[in-house]
Every structure is written in structure tokens, then in C-alpha cells.
């Protein structure tokens, strides 16, 4: 083919349009690959290397990133030096010419601890009271691995006791709420003496129990402080830690691929199942994951019945006329309204108006502290339910429309009423379509953040919205959310650089959630289409 003919037939333009398509695909692929790569790499243990700077400073570091000039010569290198309490910063850019990289010592540990980010150091000494359990890096790390489970058990016991105390506190608050309620009912008149006595008795009982637990707690804490591990930094300085502050310690230079995989899995599990630490930049995202799932579930409870009923009415009962086309325009428009507008509406209507009314009607005793009159799970779910309503309506309608009319006519021909035909024949056939709508709504709801920021999401919720205290599901509580977690940790956290791996992992988690839901919906939908293509008479 000659250039002339190539141009004359307009092929260059065709290839330009082709390029546009491939670019779009590359962008999607590139983005997913980027998040996948960065998010999965977070938990993979990186080796530690000895570094000597021009000033003669000795460091232990993980090599993170490089910066090259135009010719590809590496000029600067980014090192993670950890030990934020000592150096002030987790990361450092160094000029390559100024530093010398040494060996990968096998005894060096990456120590994750409750505060101050990771510590890169050797074990110097392990103590229990005055008894020295081990000294030196080699034996030290073996023994450390042996005693860590016991330390964690002690920490868990302390945590359990703390929870027990907060439970008792909750009971005290319950009594206080009861008293306030009674006072409000009696319009300020003093309560009958029997009541007061009963309450005081209960309070005394709770306080006694609390004192006991408190004593146990003090003893447990005291016992815990006897177990101390001393680390030696690359500079030769030492650093004492109470053993239970060590979350995990891995000799990253001395593990094979299998060991690395084990570390990786354990850290991944911690990420999914643990509470966040250090203002969300370390630890896990369990509360955010839980909040996201619970919020979308509550949203589904709101939106599915409403959306399905509306769709059934539109498709099966309403006479197609001006009203129905108006409704369709309304649905389409609702789908196009920016999510932040829903947030504004949710704040003004649900939180302040409905929530304020609920407070005035049912919880007047606790005012001016709002119960429902402030952002919370229920209002966030209701707002997102409005937002996802069009998704449910449209896909339900689509599913109902896909059921061939002959099926309805057949049912009615057999003597069924319209409702019976709908209930027994049409709906079961359309069920996968309803499911698609639900899944799509959940996928949309799980990814929205802007409306939540106005209606009840917080960076750190003190308690999960679901717990062991009646009424178990606390719809008025504020909650955490993966999407908001990304925004908060990536943009509001004091140490963004150190938090970035966590943000990538959270992003990956959210992405997996949303993409899986969407793929499922697509598969169900295509399966549905196949089914009816063959079922058409």
C-alpha cells in the first residue's frame, strides 16, 4: 500500500480514532496497574541496607525511589530511614555521591510498634524485670520471636480490661440517661426517693465493679512494664521499648521467599482486620471497611424496595402518558444531579430537619446534645439511597421490559390476575435483573464520598455502629468509610509520605470492591440477556 492511497482512503484518521480508543484503554489499564502495583507492594518486606553518609552518619534504610537526570544518571535516592522518634522524618533524599551503601546485615529487624512508625534496629538486650533473657542481635531476635506472643497476650488482657471499664462507663451513662429522661418527664420535679435510691445503688455497684477492674488493670500494666526490649540503632544509640509495644519484628534480610510471603500475608491480614493506628497511617482499615459495607447495606434496605416498587408501577401498572414520561425525565435527571447536591440536601433535610424533629420528639431529655440531629450512619445511608434510586429504577425497568409480553399474556390467559402474574411469573424471571440493579446501586454507593462528608462520615469513629450493647445497631453513630479514609489520610494527615503506601492499599481495596461488584452486575446482566434471547417466541 502506498502512502498516497493510505492518505486518500482516510486511513490516518481511522488510526487516529483507533489511537483514541487504545489511549482510553491504556489509561484504564495503566491506572488499575498502578494501583495494583503500589497497593500490593505495601506489605512486601523490603530489605534493609547499611548506609554511611558523607558526614559519617550510619543509617539503616530501605531504598525507595531514585531521581535521575536527563542522561539517566541517578543523582538522588530516596531512603526510608524509619525511626521517626529519633530522626524526625521517615524519609530522606540523599545525593548518591554522598553516601555509601554497605551490606545487608541478617540480624537487623524491621520493628513495627504502636507509635512513631517502624524502627530499623538490632536487638541489644531482652529483660524481664532484672532478669536478662538474651543479649546480642542474633540470639536476641530468636528470643524476641519467642516472647512476643506472650507480650501480645498481656496487651490483649490490658485491652480487654480497658473495654470492660468502658462497658461499665456505658452502664453509668445509661443510668444517667434514664435519670435525665425521668427528670424531663416529671418536668423538673425531684424524683421519688425510691427511684433515686435504686439508681444510686446501681451506681455504687457499678463503681465497685469498676474499681476491681481498675485494680486488675493497674496490676496488668505494672506487670507489662517489666518486660523491656532494648534496641541498638545503626548509630550505636539504644532505644528501650516495652515489649508489648512491639507489634511485629521481622528480620527482613534473613527470610527466604516463603518467609517473605508469610510476612506479607500476615501484614495483609492485619490491614484488613485491625484498627488503625497513628492517626490512620498505620495498622488496618477494619472500621472503614466495616463502615462502608454496613452503610451500603442500610442504603440497600432503603433503596431497593422503593426503587423496585417505583419501577413495577412504571412498567406494569401506569398508563404510558404524560405523567410517566415526566417521571422518566425526573429519573434521568436525578441520575445526573451532582452527588454533592444530594449531600447538601441530606444535611439540610435529613440531618437538620428530620433529625432535629426526631430529637425534639423522642429524645428531648438529652437536648441540646443532638442524638439524631447530627450526621450519622442512617442519614448517610438515606442520602445515598436517594442518589442510587435511579440506578435501581432503571435496571429494574430494564429487567421487567426484558421479560417477553407473551409470558405475561400466558399467565393471564391461564386465569391469573395481573398481580398474580406479576408476583408468580414476571418477578421471578426478572429477579436477576433486580439483583443487577441492587449490585450496581451498591457499587455506586460504595464509591461515593462527597455526600458522606456532609452527612456523617468521620476520620476516626470511637466505636463501630454495630456492637454488643442494645440496640446493637446504632444507626445514629458516625462511621468510617474507605473512600473518606483515602481522602483523609492522603490529604489531611501530618505525614503524607509515610502514609502513602496505606492510601494505595486502601485505594486498591476500594477499587477491588467496586470493580468486583460492577463485573458481577455485568455478568448477571449478560447472562440474563442470553437467557431471554433464546426464550423469545
Amino acid at each position, binding site marked *: 500500500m502506498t502512502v498516497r492511497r493510505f492518505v486518500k482512503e482516510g*486511513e490516518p484518521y*481511522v488510526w487516529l*480514532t483507533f489511537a483514541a*480508543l487504545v489511549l482510553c484503554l491504556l489509561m484504564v489499564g495503566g491506572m488499575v496497574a498502578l494501583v495494583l502495583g503500589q497497593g500490593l507492594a505495601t506489605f512486601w518486606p523490603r530489605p534493609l541496607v547499611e548506609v554511611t553518609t558523607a558526614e559519617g552518619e550510619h543509617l539503616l534504610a530501605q531504598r525507595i525511589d531514585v531521581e535521575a537526570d536527563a542522561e539517566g544518571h541517578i543523582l538522588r535516592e530516596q531512603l526510608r530511614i524509619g525511626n521517626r522518634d529519633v530522626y524526625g522524618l521517615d524519609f530522606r533524599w540523599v545525593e548518591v555521591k554522598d553516601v555509601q551503601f554497605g551490606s545487608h546485615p541478617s540480624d537487623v529487624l524491621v520493628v513495627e510498634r504502636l507509635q512513631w512508625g517502624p524502627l530499623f534496629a538490632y536487638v541489644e538486650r531482652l529483660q524481664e524485670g532484672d532478669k536478662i533473657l538474651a543479649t546480642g542481635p542474633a540470639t536476641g531476635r530468636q528470643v524476641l520471636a519467642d516472647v512476643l506472643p506472650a507480650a501480645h497476650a498481656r496487651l490483649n488482657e490490658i485491652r480487654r480490661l480497658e473495654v470492660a471499664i468502658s462497658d461499665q462507663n456505658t452502664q453509668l451513662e445509661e443510668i444517667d440517661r434514664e435519670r435525665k429522661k425521668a427528670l424531663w418527664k416529671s418536668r423538673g420535679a425531684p424524683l421519688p426517693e425510691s427511684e433515686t435510691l435504686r439508681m444510686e445503688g446501681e451506681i455504687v455497684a457499678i463503681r465497685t465493679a469498676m474499681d476491681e477492674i481498675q485494680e486488675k488493670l493497674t496490676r496488668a500494666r505494672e506487670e507489662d512494664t517489666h518486660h523491656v526490649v532494648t534496641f541498638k540503632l545503626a548509630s550505636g544509640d539504644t532505644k528501650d521499648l516495652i515489649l508489648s509495644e512491639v507489634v511485629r519484628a521481622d528480620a527482613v534480610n534473613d527470610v527466604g521467599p516463603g518467609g517473605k510471603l508469610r510476612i506479607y500475608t500476615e501484614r495483609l491480614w492485619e490491614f484488613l482486620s485491625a484498627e488503625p493506628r497513628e492517626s490512620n497511617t498505620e495498622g488496618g482499615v477494619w472500621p472503614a471497611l466495616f463502615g462502608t459495607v454496613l452503610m451500603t447495606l442500610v442504603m440497600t434496605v432503603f433503596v431497593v424496595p422503593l426503587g423496585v416498587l417505583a419501577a413495577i408501577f412504571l412498567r406494569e401498572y401506569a398508563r404510558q402518558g404524560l405523567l410517566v414520561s415526566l417521571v422518566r425525565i425526573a429519573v434521568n435527571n436525578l441520575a445526573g444531579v451532582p452527588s454533592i*447536591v444530594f449531600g447538601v440536601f441530606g444535611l439540610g433535610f435529613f440531618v437538620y430537619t428530620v433529625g432535629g424533629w426526631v430529637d425534639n420528639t423522642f429524645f428531648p431529655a438529652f437536648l441540646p446534645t443532638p442524638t439524631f440531629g447530627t450526621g450519622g450512619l442512617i442519614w448517610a445511608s438515606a442520602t445515598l439511597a436517594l442518589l442510587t434510586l435511579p440506578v435501581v429504577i432503571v435496571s429494574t425497568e430494564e429487567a421487567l421490559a426484558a421479560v417477553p409480553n407473551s409470558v405475561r399474556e400466558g399467565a393471564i390467559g391461564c386465569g391469573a390476575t395481573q398481580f398474580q402474574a406479576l408476583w408468580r411469573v414476571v418477578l421471578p424471571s426478572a429477579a436477576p435483573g433486580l439483583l443487577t440493579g441492587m449490585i450496581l446501586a451498591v457499587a455506586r454507593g460504595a464509591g461515593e464520598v462527597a455526600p458522606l462528608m456532609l452527612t456523617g462520615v468521620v476520620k476516626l469513629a470511637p466505636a463501630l455502629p454495630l456492637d454488643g450493647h442494645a440496640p446493637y445497631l446504632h444507626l445514629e453513630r458516625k462511621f468510617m468509610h474507605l473512600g473518606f479514609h483515602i481522602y483523609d489520610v492522603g490529604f489531611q494527615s501530618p505525614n503524607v509520605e509515610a502514609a502513602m503506601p496505606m492510601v494505595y492499599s486502601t485505594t486498591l481495596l476500594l477499587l477491588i470492591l467496586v470493580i468486583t461488584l460492577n463485573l458481577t452486575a455485568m455478568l448477571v446482566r449478560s447472562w440474563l440477556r442470553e437467557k431471554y434471547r433464546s426464550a423469545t417466541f
Partner: protein
Amino acid sequence: MIVVVLGMFLFILVEVWPLLQAPHIGQKDTVSSATTSLIAGIDPYGDSVWTLSTEPFVRLVDVPPGTTRGEADVQRGEARPDRQLMLESWQVEGEDPPPAEAAPMPIFLTAATRQGDWLVAGNNDGRVWVGKLTFEPTFAGDVRHTDGHMERVAVLQLDPARTAIKALAFAASDEKEQVFALTERGALLGVTSTVEENLLGETTRTWAPISLVDAPEEGGVTLALDSEGRHLAVTTREELRLWDVRAETRAAQHLKLGGETTSLVWLLGGESLVVGRRDGAITTWMSVDGGEKGRSFQEVTTLAPQAAPITRLVAGGRTRSFLSVAGGTLLLHHRTSGRSWPLAIPSGVVGAWFGPREDQLLTQTGDGKLLLTALENAHPEVSLTTLFRPVWYEGYAKPESVWQSTGGSDEFEPKLSLLPLVWGTLKGTFYALIFAGPLGILAAIYTSLFLDGTTRRWVKPTIEIMASLPSVVLGFLAALWLAPRMAGHLPSILAALVLIPMAAVVAGFLWHRLSRARRASLPGFAPVLWLGLMLGLAVFLSGPLGISVERLFFAGDFRQWMADNGTVVDRRNSLVVAFALGFAVIPLIYTISEDAISAVPPSLKSASLACGASLWQTAVRVMVPAATPGILSAIMIGFGRAVGETMIVLMATGNTPIMDISLFNGFRTLSANIAVELPEAPVDSSLYRLLFLSALLLFGLTFVINTAAEVVRARLRARFKAM
């Protein structure tokens, strides 16, 4: 559904509505009648009214019983008899008491002023009484009474010549108090105190005169001192003199006035001066930054002129509202919005005073009747003009559209112009569409007209997945991954813009050089792979090419070069947003355009091909024109999505509300502004309602656009059906 949409719209509208309401008078209470007061006021609790006339005592009058404003569970008690709080002892310190036998000339008060708790009164003997009037409530159950206390601080013989004090101005701070007065003749006199505190916490004051350069010795008409005690303004018949009292030199600025002044007042914050004239004009003055010429005090606005002389001006203590009395009628004005509203008060007003929170108004008519009214004045600073036209804010060189809703202090003047936000919204949308429009439409053309069926079956879901990606993820990647990389490689990106289309054409040409048989033997996705490779190569090559370009034309550092040429390249700039926002919009545009093109009846395509047109000619001359309305609606829907997108712009722009077309700096959109400010906005404040108005704008805009797009698509569908 209609109910939901209408309900949302109406609810938001109801929240916005009070913004547009003019200030008006609420419930009225006649309190009492008294002789004409020099000054009067309402106590901080709204339980009593105090007045000071020519006699040396403050009269305290209880407001009739009823429910108090703002506090649901408190009642005002029964009105008690009026009380008198004496301005005790007019004896000047260190001066002999007047001999008892000297014929006492009748002494009466001639001027008074109040600032904070301070009450200052002057008499016809040239003396000034300085003291404090404070209030304290007492409760009996839910019933509240409020009582006043008068405390004398000092009496000063301000005018040694013992002529009457005509006008007074006072300012107090922690360290000192200042008193300025105009005498009968119009001479300006000033005294300042120094407060010293000893170890026991007792304070002693010493008073000394202040000398001001060019202080008029006669002919002064009015004076005003701002509450901080910084600026003193005095008018004579033909000019305004202005002193910075705290400056060492205390030199006067002489400013020409357009007419004879009758009244003068500083507004809250001490930046704006309001001048009332005999010819009924009200003008506002303030210090304006004239660039190289330095700051100068200028007349900036003229408010609605009145028919009669402006006899009194009263500044509010909470906003930049002020009252004017002219010919017995009372008007409320606001400096920022430059608006004036008549208030429904019986005519014959001689005096008017704001309540402590500007939600009450005390007026006195010529016959001495005092009227206490509620004042609904929640949003005087907002009008259509202030929202969408430039406004001359305090401290600015010229009228500008600015969004700055909160400042460091209570005296901050809120700058609530929606224009920069609307601008930012449209700017972001525009750039995003420039990026996403061509890409989405071209990709749709290829998919619907040239792509084989198998590949299409997985291409479309992939793009649908792209649509479902949470915007918070896009925003995060744009801001923290893309922005830092883009900032250092701007020329490379420009190079890529050129290289990528070139690579596409070259790839196409090379592909067509393959023999037909060879091409047929390759799997269906091979062209995608091939082109992907070539594009990857182009992107890879654009890196070094960009660096070379940077060396050759931009002295090795593009950002530096731009900065030297007067454009600062922000890290989070419009380019980043265009990319991220475009990413979010592409799938929408793609899907709808693809649907539109695919829906063109295939008979058209067959006819065109049969006539000998090439595939591309068929596409451009036949298929795409037929689908144009559909593609247009795709762009409209993309626009609707981009306009309201929040998280991406919130994260990927610097959120600076500036109006600038430049690709290299950030902006703030309506949606991001809502997300940033609404959680902090006090319920029912002007800011809160304005954010609801922003939401209403977004709602309306997307509603109109989506409806239009829907109508276009419906018509197109009908047309294709008819074919």
C-alpha cells in the same frame, strides 16, 4: 419520583429564600415616652431600655413582659417602675469644688456616646463624665429581670474655656482610653489616659491632652472615632480631616467634601467611614491601595440619596449595617452590598439605636416616644449584585469579585461573590471536556464503525468499568501521583501530545504494509496490541524529547521559565484536573456517542459503501453527521457530570478561588466549595444559605442540561425509527 425531585428542589429553595428577603421590622413594643434622648440603648439581654437625656442620670425602663428572643425557656418579668442611675459627682479631680455661694448656672448634658460598657457624657460647662454602665440579670425560676450599674471612672474639664461640648467620640482599649470632643465653637479637643496596674491589680489612670496637627480651633461640625481608637475623622464646613491617632506625627489628611456634612460614623472594623450630608447624600469612604501612589482615603460609594439632611448615622456592632435618619424617616443600609431599605417605623424619627445583636431596634420620635422593635436583618451583605458583580471591599484597590467567607476576627468583612466559584467550575469543566470530548468521541467512532465484534465485546465493558471508578480514587491519583510527576515534565507532556497522533498514523501505515493474508492470520486483538505498543513507545520517547525541548526553548527549566515570564506554575493545576476530570467523563461521552452512532440505520452505511465511498468517508460524511445530535447530547451529559464532580477537584486543585484562565494554576469550584465550607458553616447563616444556593445552581444547571440532552436523544431515536 417527581415528588423526590421537586421535593429536593423546593427544600433547597426554601433554605435559600431568606437570602433574598429585605430586612424588615418585626414585633413592636412601645416602651415609654421620655424627653428626647441624647443616647439610648437596649441592655445585652433585651430586658430593659436605657436612655440619657439632658439630665445627669440614665433612666432604665423595663420592656413589657413576654417571651425573650432566642431563649425559649426564659420569660421577661413584669415591668417594674422606672429607675434612675445617677452620673454621680461632676467634680474634676485636683480642682477645687466651686464655691458654694457662686451662682450656679444651670448645668445640663449636651452630648453623649457609648462604646462597649463605657458611657461618656459632656455638659454645657466643658466637662466630660467618663464611666461604665453594665447590666446583670437576676432570675426567679424562668423569669428574668435585668438591672444596671453605673460606675464613675473620671470627670475631665476638657474645655478650659468652659463652653458646651457639642459632640463626643470615645474609644477604649486595654491600655488606654481616648476622648475627643467638639466644643460649641467647633474646636477639637482630645484627652488620652494611660492605665497603669500595680502589683495588687489596682489600676491608676493619668489623663493628658493629645495634640493633633491641624486640629480645627473653630468650625468643626462632626467627629467620629473608630472603636479601636485608630482613626479620627472631623468635618468642617468644606472638608474632612483625618488623623491616624496612633501615628507619631498625628498629621491630618485634608479631603474635599462634595457638600456640607451633618453626620459621620465609622463602621465595624474601623475601615469604612460613612458621611451624611445636608443635601441628603450618604457616601462611604475608605482607605484604598493605589499601588505606587500609596494608600489614600477615598470616597468609594454613594448610597440612595434622601430628600432631607442626614441628621443621624448609627453603625451596627455585628455587621457593616448602619442606620440613617433623614427628615424623620429611618433607613437601614449596608456598606458592602450598597443597598438601602426603608423600615416601617412611624415617621418623625429623631433618634435610632441598634440592639446589642442587631436583631432589635430602638427608635425615638419627636414627641419622645420610644419604640422597641425586632429587626429581621439576617443577610444584609448578600444581594444579586454582590454575588455576581464586582464589589469594592475594604482594603481593595478596586471593585473585585472575591470569595473569602471567613477571616481571623469578628470584624472581618465577608466577601461572598459566587463569580470566582462559577468561573472555577466552568474552567475545570471546559478543560476537562477539551481533553475528554475528542478522545471519547473518536474512540466511540472507532468502536462502532471499525472495531470487530469480538474485541468490541470486551472493550465496551472495560470502558464501563472506567465509568464506575470512584472519583475519590481518581482525585487521589491525580493529586498525589500525577501532579508531582506532571509538574517536572510539562514539556514532555506537550511533546507527547504531538508524538502520540504521529505514532498512531505511523503504526497504521506500517500495519497496512503487511500483506492482507498476513493480517488475516493474526488474532483479532493484534491491532490493539500493536497500536498500544506504538503509543507506549511514543510516550516513552516523549520523555527525552521533552527534556530536549526544555533545554532548547525554556532554558532547561520550564517552570522557572514560566515564572520568569510572569506565570507561576502551581503543582495542582488545571492540567492535572483536566486529565483526572476528563478521565471521569470519557466513559460517559464514549458510551452515549457509541450508542448514537451504532443506532444509525445500517442501510445508510451500506448505501454509502455501495456508492464507492471508503470506510472513513462513510464514517465522516454519513454516519457521524447522522448521529451528531446524539454526540452533542453525550457532550452535554459529560458537561453535567464534570460540573458537579466534587472529589476530583477538591483533591487535585489547590482550591484557590481565583479568576484566571491559565492552565497552570488551580481554581475552586462550586461543588468543592460546598464540601470544604458547609461542614463548618453555622446553620442559617448567610454562608450556609449561600452554599445551598450553590447547590441550587448546580442542581438547576445539570437539570436543564440533562433534560435538553434527553430531549435531543429522544428526537434522534424517533428519527432513526422512522428511517
